[in-house]
């Protein structure tokens, strides 16, 4: 059996106002990606990208997205991601979704990895950096304990759905590394 290889793209969703909170849905992210890849690479490009397309991790508070693609087609996805302009998003406390055009935003890629473990490491270092930055801006101890609590509740990168194929990938990578 030929081994299936994947690439995991870690990206951050950046809105115009970084302090506002939006509910981001993984299905909407996939809809946006398919629309953009058809515009840039056509129908045949979309067909290749759509085989193994899956959103593995999405955190609404830190706004990090982890997208999985087959490794033969990851260049097509990477070259089409910067053209995303808007995304349909749900406002907190409002029943209906926002306008079909969506809110202005863009995706900022942080790294591309071959296993989920490496992606989890990068998520942890990114989270530490933002926590250090917020703690240095705090002036009282109450604010600091609040910040630590929120980070402990809402950052859980280990709880991701991992398939059997991906476990085999990671075992083979470790053996090759040794």
């Amino acid at each position, binding site marked *: 059996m030929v081994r299936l290889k994947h690439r995991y793209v870690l990206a951050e969703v950046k809105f*115009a106002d970084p302090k506002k909170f939006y509910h981001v849905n993984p299905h909407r992210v996939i809809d946006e990606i398919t629309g953009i890849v058809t515009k*840039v690479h056509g129908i045949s490009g979309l067909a290749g990208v759509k085989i193994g397309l899956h959103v593995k991790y999405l955190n609404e508070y830190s706004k990090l997205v982890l997208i999985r693609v087959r490794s033969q087609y990851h260049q097509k996805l990477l070259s089409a991601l910067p053209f995303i302009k808007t995304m349909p998003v749900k406002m907190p406390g409002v029943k209906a979704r926002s306008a079909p055009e969506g809110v202005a935003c863009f995706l900022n*890629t*942080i790294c591309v990895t071959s296993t989920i473990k490496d992606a989890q490491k990068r998520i942890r270092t990114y989270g530490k950096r933002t926590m250090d930055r917020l703690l240095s801006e705090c002036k009282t101890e109450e604010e600091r304990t609040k910040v630590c609590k929120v980070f402990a509740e809402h950052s859980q990168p280990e709880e991701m759905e991992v398939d059997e194929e991906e476990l085999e990938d990671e075992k083979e990578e470790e053996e090759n590394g040794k």
Partner: protein
Amino acid sequence: MLDLRLPDHGVYCDLNVPSDNNTVNTKNKVQMLISLGYGVIALSTEMPSTTKTGKTKGKENYPQPQPPVVLDQDVKDQLKRDKRRVLVLTRITIEMENNEDAIKVRSILLNSKFDIVAVRPKNDKMFLNCKDLPIDIICMDSAAEKMPFIPKPNLIKQVVGRNVYFEFNYSPMIRDDVIMQRTIMNGLRVAEAGKGKNVLLSSGALVPMELRGPRDVGNMSMLMGVQQNRAIDSVQKNARSVVVHAYTRVTAKSAAVIQYSPLEEGTKRSSNQDLPEAKKVKLNA
């Protein structure tokens, strides 16, 4: 150590950020670029050609560089904590259509009020003219017209040998589909002739939400035929060589920078008598 106005290796650069009298907009753009990870920013002013403005006499009508940008206190504190340095330079882009424009370019090069000088030729003749001038960037913008001229591979090779790069803007591509097709067409032509080593990507953003991160911009150059190994060079290595070329254009044959270095505590400056004989200063030859 020395405090030259040059970036280190491996720093991301954005060399075309249009700046007008609207200071709040430019400040927001610069702060967004700093948060995305850029280290060198160049604020540009436009100079249209004489066919649009008519003949003008005298050097008083040349545009002046914008006053420096004042950042918020939060951003400055954040930069100090990370020990990061951000360079903000000035740049001018000149459109060339007549011989009078070529005269303007030469006089602006002598004035040296701007750090970087860029040129946007619109004919084959003007491209041949600007091939020999000591410019830094050749702008290949196909904003609202058909392709202005078709560059030949031999000329491109001669230009690249002198460390002058071809620049494309990526935020008009995000705004409009027709412009996206034209810039990718031009980019493929230029990258073919230079094996993908002579492309520079920069933003021509009017609004802060049209800016993109450095790795995204490098991935966009893959659409223009650049290999994945060298995709990030269009933001890193090529841009740095342009800044160094602009710096050496202002200096003479050789430059010496003298800087007073602070003494460590507890040491004294040794006088001439304490040194060994070989190191003493000999005044009588």
